[in-house]
């Protein structure tokens, strides 16, 4: 008989090993799924996970895709640590793009060097505004932030659709539902010639470092860690849950908003109905894959970015539907959660130990 026996302490080794284990198991299951779909599993896995990054342009694209994932996941991880479940990052991303992108459209013939910084500020405000609504509803009215933040995602997406179909549609376009292209002054500079790697990627690295400092050196970082691990102790010493809710949702919203702005002012260059292939949702997986730790999130973001690239390539070369990406992401999260049991429990075979030994 197999049983789970609680460990006295969380196993540090398993904290780092379980993501590796989860990735390996996802690859095995992925291979099985590919062979069911009539593909050679090794060819398919090669196309999915190696081919996209076997040249320098591919690696640069990996950074482009990882940028929004890492920025958003850092913000979300702060909330997850304190049991604040913001799952509406996709909506906050959209609002950031609308706020910041709206400025670029208003000054569509601007050449001012202040345009881009102002767009950053508005993008962050837009995201924080959209994240602040669930915070207000949770702290003031006790409404569950999981459901409200998700519902607001649908609202934000529909609002963007309204804008690009209506008032913000490019008057010089051919009736396509998209805005004017942003002026050059409103576009993120590319930081590595010949690629699409933009200023936002450098910002993502800064966010990782800032997140690390916040978590390990600041008072609020300490509070976040305590609230998540021992909510009762936290209440006992007077950490205010409400402050955590506000802080994590505003921060998560602002970072998601910036990530959204970076997408429209970077790779996309205008507003259009679809500005994100679900980065806000994938970032949830990135946060868990990275163990809610900034450095881990950096690696997690790169791995999940690879599933996007692999999915695109597999669609072109193997004719696999793009949905394979989402499938892989879901399976990975399942295995990750399953492997986590090993950090808290030991797997024991055989009948329960004698009474004196039991933990």
């Amino acid at each position, binding site marked *: 008989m197999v049983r789970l026996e609680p460990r006295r302490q969380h196993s540090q080794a398993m904290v780092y090993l379980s993501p590796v284990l989860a990735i390996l198991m996802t690859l095995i299951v992925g291979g099985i799924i590919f062979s069911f779909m009539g593909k050679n599993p090794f060819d398919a896995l090669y196309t999915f996970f190696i081919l996209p990054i076997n040249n320098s342009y591919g690696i640069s694209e990996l950074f482009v895709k990882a940028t929004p994932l890492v920025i958003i996941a850092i913000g979300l991880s702060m909330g997850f640590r304190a049991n604040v479940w913001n799952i509406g990052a996709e909506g906050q991303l959209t609002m950031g793009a609308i706020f910041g992108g709206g400025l670029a459209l208003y000054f569509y013939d601007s050449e001012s060097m202040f345009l881009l910084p102002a767009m950053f500020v508005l993008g962050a405000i837009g995201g924080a505004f959209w994240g602040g609504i669930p915070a207000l509803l949770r702290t*003031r*009215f006790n409404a569950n932030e999981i459901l*409200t933040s998700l519902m*607001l995602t649908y*609202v934000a997406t529909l609002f963007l659709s309204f804008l690009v179909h209506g008032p913000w549609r490019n008057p010089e376009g051919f009736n396509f539902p998209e805005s004017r292209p942003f002026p050059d002054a409103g576009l993120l500079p590319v930081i590595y010639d010949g690629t699409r790697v933009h200023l936002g990627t450098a910002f993502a690295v800064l966010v990782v470092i800032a997140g690390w400092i916040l978590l390990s050196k600041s008072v609020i970082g300490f509070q976040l860690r305590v609230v998540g691990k021992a909510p009762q102790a936290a209440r006992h010493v007077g950490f205010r849950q409400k402050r955590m809710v506000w802080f994590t949702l505003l921060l998560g919203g602002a970072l998601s908003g910036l990530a959204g702005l970076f997408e429209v002012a970077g790779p996309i260059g205008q507003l259009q109905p679809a500005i994100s292939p679900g980065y806000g949702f994938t970032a949830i997986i990135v946060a868990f894959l990275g163990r809610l730790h900034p450095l881990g999130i950096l690696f997690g973001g790169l791995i999940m970015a690879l599933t996007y690239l692999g999915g695109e390539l597999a669609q072109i070369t193997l004719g696999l539907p793009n949905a394979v990406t989402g499938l892989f*992401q879901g*399976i990975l999260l399942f295995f990750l*959660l399953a492997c986590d*049991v090993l950090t808290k429990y030991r797997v024991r075979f055989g009948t329960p130990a004698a009474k004196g030994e039991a933990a």
Partner: protein
Amino acid sequence: MDWLIPLILTVITASTPLLLASTGELITEKSGVLNLGVEGMMLVGAISGFAVTASSGSAILGILAAIIAGMLMSLIFAFLTLTLMANQVATGLALTIFGVGFSALVGSGFVGFAIEPLPGLHIPVLTDIPLVGEILFGQDFLVYLSIVMVMAVGFFLSRTRGGLILKAVGDSHHSAHAIGYSVIKIRYMATMFGGAMAGLAGAYLSLSYTPMWAENMTAGRGWIALALVVFATWRPGRLLAGAYMFGLISVLQLHAQSAGVHVPSQFMSMLPYLATVIVLVIISSDRAKIRLNAPACIGQAFRPAQ
């Protein structure tokens, strides 16, 4: 009166998937388990039901497949959260992400397929009664089933021993365990009931509501069903009323144009989501009521002391 009958008919079809899914989730939550994967289970139910119906030509087989698919999805959730004690919120999200991807993958071969929608009931004379005939006697059987199920769940919870045990497990798992009930087993069953109902709700969407498959065709209905359970403060009677109220809100956009209301369609489409937020706020702000009705152990892992 010309507009009233079509309005009522569309409200019924829009409400049924919400009612089916939220009835299942109500039982799951009453046992103390919060499964946020309703959206994913519905999508997998929708594609399973559609794929089997399109391939076999039998809607009954399709509906059975959807129920089984929903149950299998909920089994993944139950294994992770009840056996391996994984975090229920994170696992529910994973179930939805997985369900979206899996259904899109299977469904990519079925885009553009056409099937016969589920036939409506036809009782000579009764169905032909002017005005109310079609509403009362002309629906497909899933509509009647959704109403029977919510009433059965109401009866089960308030009048049967099984219902009492379920509530005991959800309100105080340690006491229920001490009395001798198998908390884990009961939660497995409650979670699978939720999965089966979500699968059925998905099948209703792909076989009756819009007899076709489209990626993400649930469009957030799984999440609205979750909000409905809170709205109903875990009581089946209010669930029925709430589902129909949301059904009405979600079809308003179809009827607003013909009624001469000129609001951009995107704003009309926002209504169900905004209504969900507003309703959650109103219900949740009454903390006493939530505390009185919510299962006390919801979302908590149970590990029997050894």
